[in-house]
């Protein structure tokens, strides 16, 4: 059982001055609350991954295969040849230190090995030792380090303390992206069966049932039906939410948390209301019932395996294009990998909004549109009747989720929507938003309870920026467009910045949306009474 984390005032007793010791000492103490448990053997077996067995990171014997070193070095050699990013990022870092205090894990933990430069040096030292002339001859003097079991254990610790958020790569003068390096090291660790359950169980579930949570088709239908019932209570309108319907114009894909988690669920209600109101011809899929992709946190191959069903299902159902819900890493995959991995999507059409006629030129090859692009276009073309006063009980801020910000550049669309559905929108300080946004601290498969101390540490910079707007403007709702944010930021905010809830953009759209034939709204989508009505009466 995970222990309760220390109190906030204890957790911030940190100093950013590293010790004088040599960082190349690889020994790591696996302290409770700061790491994720190993992947269960059954999940490895289901995904046909090597070395399934029972082990835990805090055991001294990790039951590695006897030739683990050769496997890793061979894996490195192969990846150096396949990825220019990997080879280049191993060679060109000058250790200028600009990235050092840009990592939320370094800022929250002050562990010097969480400086992105040093995280990369953990493998760069091994690269130099085995793959460069200087390193092979001069070893330590050329910055080389032998690949020992301690080094492997250190990799596991620190490369599962990186959320692949890419903030460091914004500040790097060479664009060195620690996410790339983390992805490589996690691939290498996979080769010898060193991986975490929080990544591989969702991956195995997703492979089998279609979604991370392992929800089977009937369960998927039940939860969508439940949402339809609940909406009828709130609005008096019975919406349709078709599943696996052939011939629909659009396939709508969301992260599974949207229909099984809170506060994601309110965002799902928002989507359903919106689609009903504009009469969108769309369908969900119980097979492609997951937009998220924990393969991204495991290996490129796993990412491709899990992503394949999106295009496959779009083709089977005969839709024209794909619409994607609010999710961060799903959009990293959809924007930067999907077409390359599982395209070309020549069986789809270039996306055109059936309501406004807008052609989404920016998605003309991949043929998948972000819900915020879709909705902001609707609002801009005045297709929605919005009563933003229905969100007056919320003082709202917007947290840019890492992947939409730094892998897509989706910055203005959600803000445009927010300004139209809310009268009280406040930005956090500029070093903490847009391309400089801080991660929630739990992305890339780290959002598990046993890792709670590290998650809270990683969440500190974000939560601290929220605290600023909470204290200054009375902000009580943080909106975001990422399922992992919605799942983990409530915990981080409750710990660091109590009094601020977390919600999605389309939850607020749903609140504000005036639907034809709706009954008078007495509650918001959270079934909380709408206060402003009472206020008017009292005045």
């Amino acid at each position, binding site marked *: 059982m995970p222990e309760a984390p220390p109190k906030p005032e204890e957790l911030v007793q940190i100093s950013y001055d590293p010790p004088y010791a040599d960082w190349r000492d690889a020994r790591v103490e696996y302290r409770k609350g700061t790491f994720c448990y190993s992947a269960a053997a059954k999940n490895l077996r289901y995904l046909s991954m090597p070395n399934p067995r029972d082990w835990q990171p805090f055991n001294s014997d990790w039951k590695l295969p006897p030739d683990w070193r050769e496997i890793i070095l061979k894996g490195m050699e192969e990846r150096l040849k396949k990825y220019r990013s990997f080879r280049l990022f191993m060679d060109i870092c000058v250790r200028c230190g600009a990235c050092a205090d840009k990592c939320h894990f370094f800022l929250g933990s002050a562990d010097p090995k969480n400086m992105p430069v040093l995280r990369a040096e953990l493998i760069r030292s091994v690269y130099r030792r085995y793959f460069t002339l200087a390193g092979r001859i001069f070893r330590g003097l050329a910055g080389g380090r032998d690949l020992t079991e301690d080094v492997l254990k250190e990799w596991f610790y620190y490369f599962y303390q990186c959320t692949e958020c890419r903030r460091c790569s914004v500040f790097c003068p060479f664009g060195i992206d620690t996410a790339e390096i983390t992805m490589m090291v996690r691939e290498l660790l996979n080769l010898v069966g060193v991986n975490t359950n929080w990544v591989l169980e969702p991956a195995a579930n997703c492979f089998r049932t279609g979604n991370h949570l392992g929800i089977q*088709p009937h369960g998927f239908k039940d939860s969508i039906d439940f949402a339809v019932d609940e909406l009828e209570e709130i609005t008096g309108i019975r919406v349709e939410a078709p599943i696996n319907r052939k011939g629909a114009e659009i396939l709508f894909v969301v992260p599974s948390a949207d229909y099984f988690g809170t506060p994601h669920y309110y965002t799902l209600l928002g989507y359903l209301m919106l689609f009903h109101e504009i009469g969108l011809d769309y369908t969900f899929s119980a097979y492609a019932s997951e937009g998220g992709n924990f393969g991204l946190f495991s290996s490129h191959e796993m990412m491709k395996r899990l992503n394949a069903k999106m295009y496959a*299902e779009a083709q089977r159902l005969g839709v024209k294009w794909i619409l994607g819900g609010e999710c961060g890493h799903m959009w990293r995959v959809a924007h930067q990998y999907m077409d390359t991995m599982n395209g070309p999507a020549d069986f789809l059409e270039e996306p055109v909004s059936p309501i406004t006629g807008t052609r989404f030129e920016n998605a003309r090859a991949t043929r998948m549109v972000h819900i915020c692009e879709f909705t902001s276009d609707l609002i801009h073309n005045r297709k929605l009747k919005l009563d933003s006063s229905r969100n007056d009980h919320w003082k709202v801020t917007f947290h840019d989720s890492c992947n939409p910000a730094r892998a897509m550049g989706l910055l203005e669309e959600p803000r445009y929507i927010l300004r139209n559905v809310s009268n009280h929108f406040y930005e956090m300080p500029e070093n903490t938003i847009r391309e400089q946004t801080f991660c929630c601290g739990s992305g890339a498969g780290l959002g598990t309870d046993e890792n709670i101390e590290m998650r809270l540490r990683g969440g500190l910079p974000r939560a601290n920026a929220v605290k600023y707007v909470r204290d200054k403007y009375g902000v009580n709702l943080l909106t975001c467009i990422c399922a992992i944010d919605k799942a983990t930021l409530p915990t981080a905010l409750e710990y660091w910045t109590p009094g601020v809830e977390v919600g999605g953009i389309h939850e607020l759209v749903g609140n504000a949306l005036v639907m034809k034939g709706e009954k008078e709204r007495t509650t918001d989508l959270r079934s909380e009474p709408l206060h402003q009505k009472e206020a008017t009466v009292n005045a």
Partner: protein
Amino acid sequence: MSALISFILVLLVTGLSFAGGEIDSSRFLLGVILPYMAMAAFLAGLVYRVLKWANSPVPFHIPTTCGQQKSLPWIKSSWIESPHTRLGVVTRMAMEILFFRSLFRNSRAQLREGPRFLYAENKGLWLAALAFHWSMLVIVLRHLRFFVVPVPRFILGMDAVDGFFQVGAPQLLVTDAVITVALLFLLQRRFTDSQVRYISMFSDYLALFLLLGIAVSGILMRYFFKVDLEGVKQLAMGLVTFSPTVPASVSALVFVHLTLVSLLLAYFPFSKLVHMGGIFLSPTRNLANNSRMVRHVNPWDYPVKVHTYQEWEEEFHDKIKAAGLPLERE
């Protein structure tokens, strides 16, 4: 410790090359053979490195976006920070290479009571890096006067600008002062900034000490211990025309300068200094953010094991049916 070793190493090289410059038998070695070998290592090493990088493909389209994407026509996109055109990418790269755009973003995080984070302006590193690199470029170009006859006009013009302040005789060249101060700044932060100290390695110090040695020996030759410029030019011309001679008038200090430069050249491709070539190839910077507009092809793509719809329907057939969802096979 590694700072000390690299410092001693550079001192040792300085001493040896000074002594060697005084001894007739080693002047040819230091003045001709070493520079040739160094240049060969530099060129071969650099070509090797760049080919290695270029031979590894870019399988996925992974730019880091630092601004608004190009999406709806009424949303202003950031054409440099999140470029979707070739011109945008070239401009972004030019901003990185010429002005160190990303380093300009640098800030310093501080955790105050509260807790409260402050992100203070921190442009020192950017300024010093820019000052060093631009001075270095001007100095290298100025040195062309030793290698070409007649000296091109632009180099003479550059000297005039560089000597703008007209201090002393020979007049002080601004870049000489700037590069020394910039290098000293970059060196001191490796000692005084605890985070940078922790990550610094032997090769970081070695590069700085070598560069400082080169700068200082050059300054000594120009302002304090005048060397025979005609002799130096003869030596340089001999090297580039492959008819090397070592004039007797060339003093030992020239050999120190030349040896340190040779070491830097030879060391260049095998150290972090190759970042000069690498930045051009960085896939997070040199790709357009048009990932959904234009299909990117992975040259080594291979088929993977997937879970097909048919397999899925077969496994959950009864549950799909009971839920009233459509089936491919009843």
